[in-house]
């Protein structure tokens, strides 16, 4: 098993490892998946996030498949 979060530092040379910490994020939280392969600018991504729209469900109409704000607006 891998070293868990807070299981200690990464430096073997360290005399004493810091006190173990704890997750700041609940391990049960749903993890967003990598969606980098989709093309969209940050404001458009934010707009989609704010409106709960899954960018993966859209087809970009901009240059090289860029998802534009209009694409998101159309879907919402």
């Amino acid at each position, binding site marked *: 098993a891998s070293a868990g979060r*807070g299981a200690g530092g990464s430096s073997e040379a360290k*005399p004493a490892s*810091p*006190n*173990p*910490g*704890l*997750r*700041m994020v609940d391990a049960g939280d749903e993890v967003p998946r990598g969606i980098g392969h989709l093309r969209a600018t940050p404001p458009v991504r934010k707009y989609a996030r704010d409106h709960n729209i899954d960018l993966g469900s859209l087809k970009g109409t901009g240059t090289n498949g860029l998802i534009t704000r209009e694409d998101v607006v159309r879907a919402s």
Partner: protein
Amino acid sequence: VISPDGTRHPCPELDEWVGDIDVPALEKLYIDMACIRRLDAEGTALQRQGELGLWAPLLGQEAAQIGSGRALENDDFIFPSYREHGVAYCRGVNPHDLLRMWRGAAPSGWNPYEVNMANQQIVIGAQTLHAAGYAMGLKFDGSAAAAITYFGDGATSQGDVSEAMVFAASYQAPLVFFCQNNHWAISEPVARQTTGHIADRAAGFGLATWRVDGNDVLAVMAATRAALAHVRTGSGPAFIEAVTYRMGAHTTADDPTRYRDALELEEWAAKDPLDRVAAHLDSLGADLGELKKRSESAADELAAGLREAITTMPDPTVDDLFAHVYSHPHQGLEEQRENYSNYLAGFAVQGQGTK
């Protein structure tokens, strides 16, 4: 002045500077040397016990450090390297402050302005320029004080040390360069740094120079007093080469058996700076037994202080991480400090203590 066997030889050039050192004064110097030898032994022991991260032993260099340290006036300012625990001891630096840096608890020990001694300098030779600048300031101020800087034989190769001599000479600044030629720069013998005497190099820069037996506390004291007197007259900087020997390891991280001969060590053991003073005092009829008792009890006290300091020294806190990077607030750093304390608080909140 005092040979290894304890006999005193006349030396017109130096004798006049230590005419005042009578038996009680010499006894005090002996006690000083015994104390810093103990201080040094404690440093090494504390490192072995894991209480210090590192220690740079001064064993063998007691005469060089006490002889020069005790020649200084209070308002003379010292720019040391990392091995001058003995000089710091002369300055009255307290045990806490002596050990703090070596423990890894702080970047440095004492407040330089409280003891007129800059913090330890690890970058070889860098402090000599600070000393030259400080001495220029003394000169501009018309002050009667002098500056002194300590460095090793290896340091003489550094450009900074040569430049410090250039500046000090150019402005005729009241600065004494005090070179402890302890024959080694870690594993390199002094011959790697120079083909001749170190003191001769300084003469080429126009400095008044002294080359003395660095294991002879009186010779060192005399030369330092003479050099200080010289620089105080405004006739330019001076240079002392105190020829001594590093009896111990370079630091507690070093293993000198890899590079140096046991014979050489033996040879120098016979020139011990304390033994010769004891022998000389003996020849003068001093009560050696009593002296050793006194010096032991002084050393015991010092050692107890060091141990106490170590056990009571608080660990540094996260605040110390961000403090003093600048003398007034810095926007970017404030942000980092706050972010990091929020981050740490995240651990604490969930009940498992701080990082």
